[in-house]
């Protein structure tokens, strides 16, 4: 009975960047949560829950932290929930990053892909590095948080309004000239594909966190599938919610 829904209390829900919110809830689900896992949040009036990655886990305080961007109606509703109100959360769900065997991890986060990497960074055996890319300064998040757990935190923006003017992949290419045995990435699919290619070309393992539209969030309904390699040049559809959301990049059929 590892997975439960819990009507938990919202401790904080406030805007931290343009359209991006920080949500902290008190829930016993923190006990089982692992970095890179996600939860499925019930949004009033919506048939489907919204999947949101776990950004930080505090087992002592029994809290989970999330960082989410308002996209459509569900996240808009979520952004209006106030501290003290309750929220119905299903989780923890899926498989997260596995950093236990790595010596030097480089995290690559694109935009709202940064959150799930933060807890993972905290749980590395050795101090990792991070490369975070954003559209612009207004959307930059979690930089100071990553600095707490990483040696080097490099930031890039598409418009140059903060840090390096360009793509995370350019910073990653440079970074991979020195020591690194695992890249963990989360962000838009084209970025993940590019990151995976760079890492694979250099023989570095790469784990990517995927996104797909979901139904049950548990693995039962088969709506959230992605193509993973299977057999000789073949593929099969695996559930992002259960087989993933984090998958070794070599398995993914892009």
């Amino acid at each position: 009975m590892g997975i439960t829904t819990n009507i938990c209390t919202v401790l904080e829900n406030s805007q931290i960047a343009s359209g991006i919110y920080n949500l902290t809830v008190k829930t016993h689900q923190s006990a089982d949560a692992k970095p890179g896992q996600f939860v499925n949040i019930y949004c009033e009036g919506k048939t489907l829950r919204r999947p949101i990655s776990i950004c930080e886990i505090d087992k002592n305080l029994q809290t989970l932290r999330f960082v989410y961007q308002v996209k459509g109606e569900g996240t808009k509703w979520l952004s209006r929930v106030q501290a003290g109100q309750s929220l119905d959360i299903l989780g923890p769900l899926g498989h997260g990053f596995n950093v236990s065997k790595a010596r030097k991890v480089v995290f690559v986060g694109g935009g709202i892909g940064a959150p799930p990497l933060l807890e993972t960074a905290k749980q590395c055996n050795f101090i990792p590095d991070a490369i975070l890319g954003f559209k612009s300064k207004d959307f930059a998040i979690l930089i100071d948080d990553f600095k707490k757990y990483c040696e080097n935190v490099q930031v890039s923006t598409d418009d140059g309004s903060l840090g390096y003017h360009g793509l995370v992949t350019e910073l990653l290419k440079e970074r991979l000239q020195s020591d690194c045995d695992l890249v963990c990435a989360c962000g838009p699919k084209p970025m993940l594909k590019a990151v995976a290619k760079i890492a694979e070309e250099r023989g570095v393992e790469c784990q990517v966190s995927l996104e797909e539209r979901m139904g049950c969030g548990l693995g039962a309904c088969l709506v959230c599938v992605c193509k993973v390699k299977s057999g000789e040049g073949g593929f099969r559809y695996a559930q992002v919610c259960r087989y993933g959301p984090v998958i070794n990049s070599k398995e993914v059929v892009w």
Partner: protein
Amino acid sequence: MADLSVNIAGVRFKNPVVTASGTFGFGREFSQVYDLSKLGGIACKGITLKPRDGNPPPRIAETPSGILNSVGLQNPGVDWFVKHEVPWLKKYDTVIIANVAGNEIADYCEVVERLNESQVDMIELNISCPNVKQGGVAFGTSAKAAGEITKAVRNVCKKPLAVKLSPNVANIGDIAAAVESEGADAVSLINTITGMRIDINTRRPILTNNTGGLSGPAVFPIAVRMVYEVSRRVTIPVIGMGGIATWQDAVEIMLAGACLVQVGTANFTDPYAPLKIIEGIEQYLDQNVISSVTEIVGKVQIYE
């Protein structure tokens, strides 16, 4: 305490709540959330003769009070099902319904023959899946085709046989009557209604299959009407589904004529929905001093 049990075609359900095919897999995942023995039954994901990949993602879109899905019958095939899923599910004290799909009548028959030797309790013939190119819904939209496939399957089927009807028809009563006359032990309805959503920014359908099947509370009034219509046309039991999300919905569709209800999309909104529905029905019966759930079936008092 009211008696919640229901008998259909010799199969005893401890309560009238079954999880709907395709929304619950083969139960493994939901078994991490609660004890499956609490359910009246589980209608397993649709299975076919050979394993199937299904359609490319995205396979789901949200709609007002509903969803569209276009999974397209991804499944590991009947042999895997019989070998790995049924024995595992048998650990639980609940009715196992195998949901069968195919391209041709011969496929359906072959799958059913392999299921005959398995421990599944009942077979639900899915002649109404809108998300596959061949077969599927085509059998479900004409009384003639529905009757033919029922007849062929009935001939080989040793298990109690329910036929699952498509709502994408002008007269569902005719189809139900046809499958009844060819030997179906029960009918289940409704499957999903074909729908479409388009992203106005990309101008592309949200589903890569272009269209998908609508389910969830949006379709509930249609399901109630169809269950009502069908239950007045046939004498075999009607298994009702389509948008049931609360115990009130379950009672309503039972009043319309359903002996048993299936809960599908509601599992996504709340994985505990089936259990809450069981509890709610029980309380409703107790409060109204009704000793058996079977007493409310079809008890709507219509206006003449």
